[in-house]
């Protein structure tokens, strides 16, 4: 058996003429938190579904715990906890009934599942909602319940597709905290996201995907180091003037990116660059110095922003 939990070589998925995933290679090790970062439509969810043995590949190899999802779908799914992008909770059942019946779907004995429910309600901070109908829960609670539900079978790999999309900042932080705990317990996480802060917070290593291909791979820090500068200066001259001054700005630093509303300038020292701009007689309406993020990596690799 290979040392990797998940291993993909030349993994390809087509829908008719459209190639959703175009021959990608990656490996996920045990206990790792692995991310797929990319905009909507990059092929992340398709990769997740192929790993989850609910979508068949068209070409290439895919091995999960030494098994081929095409041949051993039920056995592979027994190892996985799946948190889909769209909630699929059972609206006709209460919170604890949702956890109970999901455990039963795996064939687990009643007694075992009943014991698990208490542990999972505590983990998801939903003890007080145990008898509530799912419809009455907030978005963040539904997400936590979906994660708890995915954990009922004690999976080795937890698959999270856009786990915090649509949640408010507080709910996101609660969720991240729960996921950190799982990671500490040694659960392997596979996460898709189009939020770079989420990828930076949660992922040990990630692949940046665009249009079905892998653009780059590495830890968040190494990707930023390889594909961006230490700091970024964001300047605004007003929508109509940004382009006029772009040529002048380009000469002052390593690289610039022109966005519709602002210009991003890549440099090792943002403050020094800003002084240089003032010295040249230009006066931006607003300016901001920040550290480089994965957003800048993505922009560098694709020429586009993650959230359009």
């Amino acid at each position, binding site marked *: 058996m290979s040392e990797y939990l998940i291993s993909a070589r030349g993994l390809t998925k087509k829908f008719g003429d459209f190639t959703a995933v175009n021959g990608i290679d990656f490996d996920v090790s045990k206990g790792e938190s692995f991310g797929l970062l990319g905009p909507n439509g990059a092929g992340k969810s398709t990769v997740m579904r192929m790993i989850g043995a609910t979508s068949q590949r068209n070409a290439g190899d895919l091995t999960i715990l030494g098994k081929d999802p095409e041949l051993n*779908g039920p*056995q592979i799914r027994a190892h996985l906890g799946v948190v889909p992008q769209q909630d*699929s909770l059972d609206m006709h*059942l209460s919170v604890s009934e949702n956890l109970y*019946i*999901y455990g039963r*779907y795996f064939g687990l004995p009643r007694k075992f599942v009943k014991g698990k429910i208490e542990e999972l309600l505590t983990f998801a901070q939903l003890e007080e909602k145990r008898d509530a109908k799912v419809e009455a829960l907030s978005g963040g609670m539904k997400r936590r319940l979906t994660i708890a539900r995915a954990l009922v079978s004690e999976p080795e790999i937890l698959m999270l597709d856009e786990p915090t999309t649509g949640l408010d900042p507080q709910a996101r932080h609660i969720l991240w905290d729960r996921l950190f705990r799982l990671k500490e317990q040694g659960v392997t996480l596979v996460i898709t996201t189009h939020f770079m802060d989420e990828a930076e917070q949660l992922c040990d290593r990630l692949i940046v995907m665009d249009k079905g291909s892998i653009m780059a791979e590495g830890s968040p820090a190494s990707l930023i180091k390889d594909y961006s500068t230490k700091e970024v200066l964001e300047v605004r001259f007003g929508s109509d003037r940004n382009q006029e001054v772009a040529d002048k700005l380009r000469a002052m630093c390593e690289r610039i990116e022109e966005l519709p509303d602002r210009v991003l300038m890549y440099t090792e020292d943002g403050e020094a660059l800003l002084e240089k701009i003032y010295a040249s007689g230009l006066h931006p309406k607003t300016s901001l110095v920040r550290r480089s993020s994965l957003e800048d990596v993505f922009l560098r690799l694709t020429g586009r922003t993650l959230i359009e």
Partner: protein
Amino acid sequence: MFIPMAVAIAEARVGKRGERYYSGRVPQLLERGFIAFKSSTWMIVLSGFVEPVLYLLSFGYGIGKLLPTITVGNESIKYAVFIAPALLATSAMNGAIYDSTMNVFFKLNHDRIYHGMLATSMGPLDVALGEIGWALLRGFSYACAFMAVVAPLGLIPSLWGLLAIPAAVLIAFGFASCGMAVTSYMKSFQQLEIINVFLLPMFLFSGSFYPLTVFPEWLQFTVNLLPLTHAINLVRGLCLGHINVGLFGHALYFVIMIVCGLFFTTKRLNALFMK
């Protein structure tokens, strides 16, 4: 090495027939049915029982006053005795259709419940059999309740009538398998209405309220192709004690419906979820 229980359970099924489609979880899906049933809308549950009884009261005792007896073959029977088996067959059909169309459509497209189910170690055939199994349990209880009302009234002349209950379950199985297969291809709620456009005329023309012999031959021929006609003939034959080889023919019609319905449902669920 620690092996999670869910994995051990799934591994134990390796090598079994159809292991990629079926994991033997029908009891678990029925369990879900019971849990959800406890908090379901009781009006809808009751209506499945009340409807045939209302038909029996209004037609059986209304028209029965104008038309005290009706001739079937060379036997004269009370009008209520004539329609009671037809109402049993029709209620088996209606219950099965409701559970396998409306309910299935919502779980499939709106609540995404099947998406959740199929992310576990179950397969599409588990889901199909579980849903249909639930429809059958319901059909079985309606049939028992209806019999408990009509038998004491003397509307079931033959002891063979007891077999009308398993016959009703067979009928429900046929309609539920086909109903679920058709629903799995439906894209919108409006398309579901097409099923009703088909069901109501079938109910009115399949010999529920009068013998088919009143129709011209071409119409008799057409109506004889419809599933409800076979359902009514099967149940009526049993209730009246008219036992002949033809009853096997009617039963066979439903066996074919079951096989075809399950085949297309599984195929379609597989295409929808394992694409």
